[in-house]
């Protein structure tokens, strides 16, 4: 006869928290957490105590009071009577704008330089090495300053366009390059212009549809349709036709010299250009190395196999090598995008009104609310960086090797 007995019930002893491997890791984590919380509590209470000792307090009231200063690049309505919060929003949008533009151009520079660095042409290869080594080994701060200074010193002031025999002239009478920025014609949206815009977006969808159809046809029948020229034609022809059918509803407003500056048209300020260019050319050098690493990670056999199938070098790169290289390229690329966003905080060097310059600069100075402003800045950069990471991770998941 067998008796079923329960396994001996081990009584829980306090020493097991350290000696038993089942509990030890949890114990350690709890201890670490307590230490961390204590440390932050200590820092926080110390800060509050010291602030109290100086008769100061933490308050965000200043965000609702009038900012009192003007900003040179505002993409949303803003006057000196707007609130500090509005000034901060102007800064946020300016930060996002320059970060977005720089991410795109840095990627273009980086991919071009990275691919060309592996070129068979000795001169091209060496030129790209020089680009990468020079730009990534000099601090971005210095690049921003150099580019801005060269721009302001070498480009003509608006005054140079004046008079009977001006020393500078506008390009095609439409674009003016000055040391205060580039002035380009701005579109004037007349009646019916929305139809033209709608046509343009419809053609955009049309291009995607065509390419999808061509790819499907290629996979199904092996027949290769031309891609580039039909795409361009679909994109442009209907829009241009609609433009004339509607009686040219979209006009152009040309910049003209009035008073001290060019008026009319759209101004792309010198600070934006300098910052944008410096960030993209600097980060582009890093991305070039990522791209090179990605390409070299694709085994040579892939290239050789593709060539053996009769693919031309351009197609080998586009269809075989780059798609596989992307898996290696994207994770470090995320870091580079984060770097661009964070490096854009150097904007005040060239007078570009980003969030660090408005909230963390002028507002901080005029209100004296250093702690509040710096905390808000940290929060903003943290949120933006996490968002960029999240979006890029989604893209990374879409391109990574699908294992079944």
């Amino acid at each position: 006869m067998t008796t079923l007995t329960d396994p001996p019930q081990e009584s829980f002893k306090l020493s097991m928290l350290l000696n038993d491997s089942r509990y030890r890791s949890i114990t350690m984590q709890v201890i670490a957490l307590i230490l961390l919380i204590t440390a932050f509590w200590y820092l926080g209470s110390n800060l509050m105590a010291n602030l109290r000792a100086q008769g100061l307090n933490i308050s965000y009231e200043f965000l609702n009071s009038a900012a009192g200063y003007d900003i040179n690049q505002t993409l949303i309505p803003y006057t000196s009577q707007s609130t500090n919060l509005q000034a901060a929003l102007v800064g946020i949008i300016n930060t996002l704008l320059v970060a977005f533009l720089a991410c795109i151009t840095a990627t273009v520079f980086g991919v071009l330089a990275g691919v060309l660095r592996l070129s068979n042409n000795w001169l091209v290869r060496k030129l790209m090495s020089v680009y990468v080594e020079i730009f990534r080994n000099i601090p971005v701060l210095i690049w921003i300053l150099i580019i801005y200074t060269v721009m302001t010193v070498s480009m003509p002031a608006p005054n140079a366009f004046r008079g009977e025999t001006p020393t500078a002239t506008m390009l095609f009478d439409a674009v003016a390059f000055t040391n205060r920025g580039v002035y380009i014609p701005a579109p004037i949206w007349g009646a019916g212009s929305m139809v033209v815009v709608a046509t343009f977006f419809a053609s955009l969808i049309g291009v995607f549809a065509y390419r999808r159809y061509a790819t499907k046809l290629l996979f199904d029948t092996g027949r290769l349709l031309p891609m580039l020229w039909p795409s361009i034609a679909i994109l442009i022809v209907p829009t241009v036709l609609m433009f004339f059918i509607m009686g040219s509803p979209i006009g152009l407003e040309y910049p003209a010299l009035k008073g001290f500056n060019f008026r009319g048209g759209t101004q792309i300020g010198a600070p934006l250009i300098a910052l944008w260019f410096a960030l993209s050319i600097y980060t582009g050098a890093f991305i070039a190395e990522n791209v090179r690493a990605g390409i070299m990670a694709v085994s040579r056999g892939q290239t050789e196999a593709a060539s053996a199938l009769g693919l031309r070098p351009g197609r080998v790169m586009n269809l075989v090598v780059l798609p596989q290289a992307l898996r290696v390229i994207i994770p470090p690329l995320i870091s580079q995008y984060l770097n661009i966003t964070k490096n854009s905080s150097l904007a005040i060097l060239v007078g570009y009104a980003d969030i660090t310059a408005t909230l963390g600069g002028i507002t901080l100075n005029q209100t004296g609310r250093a702690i509040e402003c710096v905390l808000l800045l940290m929060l903003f950069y943290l949120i933006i960086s996490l968002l960029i990471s999240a979006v890029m991770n989604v893209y990374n998941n879409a391109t990574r090797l699908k294992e079944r």
Partner: protein
Amino acid sequence: MKKTVFLGALTVAGLAAGAAAAGTLDDVKARGKLNCGVTTGLVGFAAPDANGVWEGFDVGVCRAVAAAVLGDATAVEFVPTTGKTRFTALASGEIDMLARNTTWTFSRDTDLKFDFVGVNYYDGQGFMVPKALGVTSAKDLNGATVCIQTGTTTELNLADFFRKNNMEYEPVPIETNAEGQQQYLAGACDTYTTDASGLASTRAAFENPTEHVILPEIISKEPLGPLVRHGDNEWGDIARWTLNALIAAEELGITSANVAELGAAAGGSPEVNRILGTEGNLGEMIGLDAQWAMRAIAAGGNYGELFEKNIGEKTPIGLARGLNAQWTDGGILYTPPFR
């Protein structure tokens, strides 16, 4: 306490606290040096000369305080500050006093917890333009691009001035005076605006100063003066009365040349005697010895001498006394009596 200070500094860069609790006078005496915040370089007010020795009008105030407290006008550590860093430097105790063209305003005095100890230069904000621009009045500046130092009261005055006159402008914010000079000379902005004295000082450093004019409009009141942290009244008194002693010395005819002679023995003027410590015990009342004011005046001369030597009409900066003359000469310099 050391640890508290260290961790506090870690918490938020920009406001270390607690360190300022002890008496500044004792700190300065223990250190043997006065930490004085000045500009990063504004010729005439505070700039290092060819040998790296700081000199200028604001520097003179620092030296006078050092001479009064430590007996040595050279025992000053000059800390260059920008418009943005100056208040943090003072609040955190990095510097003992700030003598840097700082405008005395209500909120700086109250909200930021500082004490202005007086006014050493009555200034106002002006505009500088190249002569070739053909502008003769600030009212003609509609649509202009304006270079402006960020983090200063001038930024707010500028916004107010253009709003009041229904004019538009485009601000080009810059960090330091040198940067502003470069942008202005390159034509990246039509006009440069800051305190009129600063404009004169900047213009003096140009290759062709005569090609630039300072417009007649003064758009704000800018009383510039040294300041200290709020709460340490003994130290505030020392800075305040050192500055007053320099101004009173000019009024009473005490100069760097005759101060030793006048201070050797009590003379005919009771107030001179009280300032120079040959009569009464004013020095004791502010925690210093009897010769404090004598040393302060001997360091660089009285207010008038400092003015003439650094920014007066015979210097390249060429500022007239104007409002900054003694009240007896039609200015508004007026010290409370020494008694």
